[in-house]
């Protein structure tokens, strides 16, 4: 595989100044909380079983504490007195080529930044915060896997991560609008583009126009049924994804976030609504303002919250009998554990399906599907990704559901692969697709 060689050759070409630059960037990402985390791990190893990598491949390298130790050992060597005086005693190690290779393998190749280990840690160390700093350091050394970086570069160059042209995007929306009109029988049903002063700017994952147009159409149908005043942006600002969350280059992540902020200003919308995407929600809602070092002058909501509002307010009427197959729900890590959106999707599903079964465990204790943390974009770790998804596959199988609802398009991609690999024989849908199916028109 050329990528294997390419990354390895970049590792081999590292010079002393590269290691120094990496350490400088690592240090620049640390604040008092991280300094505390880096002094806290007691190596109890109880985190091991919380990690889907370790549960599906129980080796030392997959224990979260081991991954953390690779980073903390460098921190101790460089930034603590004992690490300099007695490195052998306290397990302090030099940041050299071998250690850098181990960092790449651990923080890119064996972690989806899901944070399940954080809530299970004896101490309570939010490990992904440390791994993000390590990824940033590796990025400064030119060691982000090239396919992950290409996704970011697409966003920076084209305004969306799949390099969809404006012409293709607009044509797709117009085509879907015709489909929506046919589906609803309402010739006035709209999928507005660049509607000035609309209440809502709706953003989507480029996978929707590219591969899953019916998902976008389903969201549009919900807006239509609710009589929502909404719009899509035709230019930069329609894509909610931000793989800057995963290459951990905050400057690039900020530039991608700025597309959303600019679109909101350009169109004069009041609420930015993030479609069903875990990392997209986490990026726009939580990390975006931090990357930009500024609060938004507008509100950010998940479409899940919006659909929950519609049902509570009676703005849409639904008939759960239209979704008669047993349904279970996947909790995307960036939406639920890291995003705080836990209950809205459950309230919605309870109203639009007849049989809803929770996976176990769920909510903040959910298992990552294996596709998070940019894993879907890194081909070199595909085998590990599919193997680590075994935990999720088993959860799905145990639920007995025929439909898995996943409010995240990255998770959906991974779940579709797991569906094939583990022969789960389930359908995978978004929440909006379930709601759209249940909508009772003209009620």
């Amino acid at each position: 595989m050329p990528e294997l060689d390419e990354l390895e050759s970049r590792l081999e070409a590292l010079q002393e100044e590269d290691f120094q630059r990496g350490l400088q960037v690592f240090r620049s990402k640390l604040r008092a909380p991280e300094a505390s985390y880096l002094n806290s791990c007691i190596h109890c190893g109880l985190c091991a079983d919380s990690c889907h990598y370790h549960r599906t491949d129980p080796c030392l390298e997959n224990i979260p504490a081991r991954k953390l130790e690779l980073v903390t050992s460098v921190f101790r060597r460089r930034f603590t007195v004992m690490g300099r005086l007695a490195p052998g005693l306290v397990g302090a190690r030099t940041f050299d080529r071998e250690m850098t290779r181990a960092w790449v393998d651990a923080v890119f190749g064996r972690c989806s930044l899901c944070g399940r280990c954080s809530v299970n840690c004896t101490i309570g160390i939010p490990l992904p915060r440390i791994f993000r700093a390590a990824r940033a350091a590796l990025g400064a050394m030119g060691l982000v896997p090239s396919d992950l970086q290409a996704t970011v570069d697409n966003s920076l160059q084209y305004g969306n991560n799949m390099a969809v042209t404006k012409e293709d995007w607009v044509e797709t929306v117009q085509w879907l609008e015709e489909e929506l009109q046919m589906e609803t029988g309402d010739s006035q049903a709209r999928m507005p583009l660049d509607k000035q002063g609309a209440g809502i700017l709706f953003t989507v994952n480029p996978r929707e126009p590219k591969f899953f147009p019916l998902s976008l159409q389903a969201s549009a149908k919900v807006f239509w049924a609710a009589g929502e005043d909404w719009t899509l942006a035709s230019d930069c600002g329609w894509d909610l994804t931000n793989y800057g969350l995963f290459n951990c280059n905050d400057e690039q992540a900020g530039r991608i976030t700025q597309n959303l902020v600019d679109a909101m200003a350009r169109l004069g919308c009041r609420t930015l609504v993030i479609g069903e995407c875990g990392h997209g929600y986490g990026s726009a809602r939580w990390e975006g303002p931090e990357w930009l070092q500024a609060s938004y002058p507008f509100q950010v909501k998940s479409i899940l919250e919006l659909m929950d509002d519609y049902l509570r307010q009676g703005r849409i009427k639904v008939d759960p009998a239209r979704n008669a197959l047993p349904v279970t729900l996947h909790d995307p890590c960036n939406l639920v554990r890291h995003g705080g959106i836990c209950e809205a999707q459950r309230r919605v599903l309870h109203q639009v399906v007849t049989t809803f079964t929770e996976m176990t465990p769920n909510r903040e204790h959910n298992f990552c599907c294996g596709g998070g943390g940019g894993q879907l974009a890194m081909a070199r770790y595909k085998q590990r990704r599919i193997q680590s998804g075994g935990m999720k596959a088993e959860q799905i199988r145990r639920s007995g559901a025929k439909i898995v609802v996943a409010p995240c398009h990255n998770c959906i991609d991974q779940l579709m692969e797991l569906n094939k690999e583990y022969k789960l024989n389930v359908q995978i849908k978004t929440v909006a697709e379930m709601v759209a199916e249940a909508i009772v028109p003209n009620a």
Partner: protein
Amino acid sequence: MHGTHLAVLLALAWAVVAMAFLHRRAKAYGERRLYSRPAGDPAAGVRYAFTGGLAPWAKESVRMHLLSYGAGMAFHAGVGTALALVLMALAGLDPPAFLLLPARLLTLAGAVGGFSLFMKRLFKPDLRGLSCPDDYLSNFLSSLFILLALDWTFRPGVAGLWLAEAAVLLVYAPLGKIRHCLFFFTTRYQLGAFFGRRGTFPPGGNLHA
């Protein structure tokens, strides 16, 4: 005042000052101003992190390893009891009769817990792979400290050895991983504040839930 008493007092002073220094050094990394709007209450998250979030039923890692969890709890209770006994010994007091049995039980459980965790670290390959010499030394010093405290409740004559060991433990505490006696609290606080702000802690605590 005996030489060992003075050594313990000096070691205690060192430990307190060094821990304060470590805390200050960590704080010197600076705080991060947050710009995103909170969805939950950080204070509620912190309260949960130090209460319900520590409970066995809130942590799969604990539920799956109840024996290790129990050993750890006994170990820490033993350390706390032994420290209390050291303070009494330094003050020239004998443990009140009604506290003697609980103190003995707690130090016995603590020593058993501590040494069993030491053996687990020594013999379990994964745990051994995670460990550095500091892990063994910290555990051994603490476990021995508890064991000698237990011994002292039966044989006051071992006070000299016990207090000397306590001095070594206190000197070492800020240098190795025993420093987690400080950073456990700061890290747990940060965890609670982080997930509280995002509405994940306490479960169901999201303002929009």
